[in-house]
């Protein structure tokens, strides 16, 4: 469903991604790992459409559409959703506002009517319960005053309500204690499906004990230098990244 070909990206003049290739098929969970500064977060930011990233060559297609030609919101409406490493606080905008506006925007893009209020409430209550969040979070401003763990849960809550075709989760495990990690992992696992893809961007293997990926890729200096299955992640955990870096340099 997602195809990234020979992607070169520069940020403020320096090249971060240097010919990245990645294909994610329906039903697959991919983990993108790598040392700090390898460009892991850059990939998901470029796919989501963040300003300040210049694609100098290469392509990104999602279900045959040229992602780089789409507006940020069109990407989300098409089912490409990014979960942030550092979710933004949005003072004054209630969580429930955001959820309904986002869901209806997606429905409008598909030519569907707005979700009826009772149906929306039922859906949201169910998902809030699943994420073990208190319903009072819905009335609070998005992420405002939330702890790190609450922010991450909130990101996953949005995913559960919006049901993306491809969920990209950027360091979703950072700052989580073990209980919160389990809740977040359960949330992510519930997003798995035959017609859905997941891209996990992570520095540590820990998360992958809970969300077992089908494919693991190691990103070093702007390129994927090694790919494998879940065993590769475990090997990285015990041996670190240096050997991959050295192998790739050789």
């Amino acid at each position, binding site marked *: 469903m997602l195809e990234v070909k020979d992607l070169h990206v520069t940020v403020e003049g320096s090249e971060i991604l240097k010919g990245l290739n990645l294909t994610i098929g329906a039903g697959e969970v991919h983990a993108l790992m790598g040392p700090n500064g390898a460009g892991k977060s850059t990939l998901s930011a470029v796919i989501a459409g963040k300003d300040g990233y210049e694609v100098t060559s290469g392509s990104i297609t999602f279900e045959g559409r040229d992602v780089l030609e789409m*507006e*940020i*919101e069109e990407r*989300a*409406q098409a089912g490409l959703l990014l979960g942030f490493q550092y979710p933004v606080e*949005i003072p*004054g905008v209630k969580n429930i506002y955001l959820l309904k506006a986002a869901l209806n925007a997606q429905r409008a893009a598909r030519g569907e009517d*707005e979700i009826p209020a009772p149906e929306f409430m039922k859906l949201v209550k169910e998902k809030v319960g699943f994420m073990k969040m208190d*319903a009072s979070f819905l009335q609070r401003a998005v992420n405002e005053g939330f702890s790190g763990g609450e922010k991450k849960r909130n990101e996953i809550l949005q995913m559960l309500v919006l049901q993306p075709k491809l969920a990209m989760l950027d360091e979703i495990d950072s700052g989580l204690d073990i209980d919160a990690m389990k809740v977040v992992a359960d949330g992510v696992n519930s997003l798995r499906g035959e017609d859905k893809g997941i891209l996990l961007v992570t520095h540590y293997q820990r998360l992958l004990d809970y969300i077992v990926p089908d494919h693991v890729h190691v990103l070093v200096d702007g390129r994927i230098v090694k790919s494998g299955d879940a065993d590769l992640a475990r090997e990285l955990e015990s041996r670190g990244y240096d050997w991959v870096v050295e192998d790739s340099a050789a």
Partner: protein
Amino acid sequence: MSDEQRFLDRLAERNAQRGDEPTWIAARRQAGAARFEALGFPHRRVEEWKYTDVRDIARNDFVLTENADFSPATAAALTLPLDAHRLTFVDGVFAPALSDLGSLPEGVQVLPLSRALEENHEAVGGPLGRLTGVDFSSFAALNTAFMEEGAVVRLAPRTVVDKPIVLQFLSRAGEQDVMSHPRILVEAGGRSEATLIEHHVGEAEAANFTNLVEEIILERGAILTHYKLQEAPLKDRHIASIHVEQARDSRYVSFNLNLGGGLVRNDLVSELNGEGAEAIYNGLFYGQGRQHVDNHTLVNHNAPRTFSRENYKGILDDRAHGVFNGKVIVKRDSQQIEAEQSNANLLLSDRAEIDTKPELEIYADDVKCAHGATTGQLDEEAIYALRTRGIDEQTARGLLTLAFAGEVMDRVDLDAVSERVELAVAGKLPERFNLAGLVETASAFSEE
């Protein structure tokens, strides 16, 4: 002929038509005219008017009207959907057909000024003009020269008014631009309590001039919540001078909400004269197109242990120009007072402009005062975050704009008013995203 002379000629015409009136009114009229003539329209060289050019008023030839005809259907659409005691004025003229004073409780008087004068002019003549004299400004002087209609609200001691009192001012579209000089007098007896809603609204094509003077007297322990919802047509000119005198332990809560008008100037002044008196100023101004909205506030802490809290929010789009000047004066020996003031502004366009100036003058040493002003744009990170959830850019901006206004609007506990403001601010956003529906959902959830 000078601009001032043209207005004085209109006054002379009007005076020639008038029947006999009490000598004190004629004398004040004369004093007002003389003061207006001496002062002239304010020039931008005067510090108080540095950012506000009133030539659009001065150069116009406004007429007076005596008829209050207004389409009932249009009026109904403009009226706040509230169970209230209501007086309606059309271009300053009392409109009995659009008013409703059927069920005023004991101890409450809500009268058109003309009727209050007929009934007992001396009772009006005492307080009227005591707070806002002809020296306050050219506009106050002009109002005094022309005054003939408006509202008198009196609350007997310990009266708690069951429903809001609405003073509705409708501006009518017509061939000639009309001026009106309403006069409002509120006298709240000891420990009385009321909500007053002053609502300025009108037909979209209207281009009239309203020059309001309002005097509010709060006796010991009285509580008044005063909404001024100004959503006048975008070509209307609106000048308002509001003076509040507060005795011991009284509390005045102002919601000065400005959404409309092409040229708007509000002067809000409080005299905190007794210990424990408290003034709370909440303000919101929203400007688009070439709207000009100027808010000047002044709190005089004349007694020890008096309190003021002020929070004004400005939202300016297109080439709109906002002015905020908030002054707090702590008199000598007014110890242990607390004064807080903040003004935050949001500029939605590169060409919008805000001039903000907080001023503190403190002549006592044991005081707690704080003030601050900020001006910023919408948070681009937040807009990006909303867009990554599929919300289009315009809607994202709209949501964040509403959120900015929200800090003041959260304190409004009259739904009819807050919905009007929310929808007005959101409705002015292009391609808005059914924000009304979102509001409903959010409140439905919290009610469960």
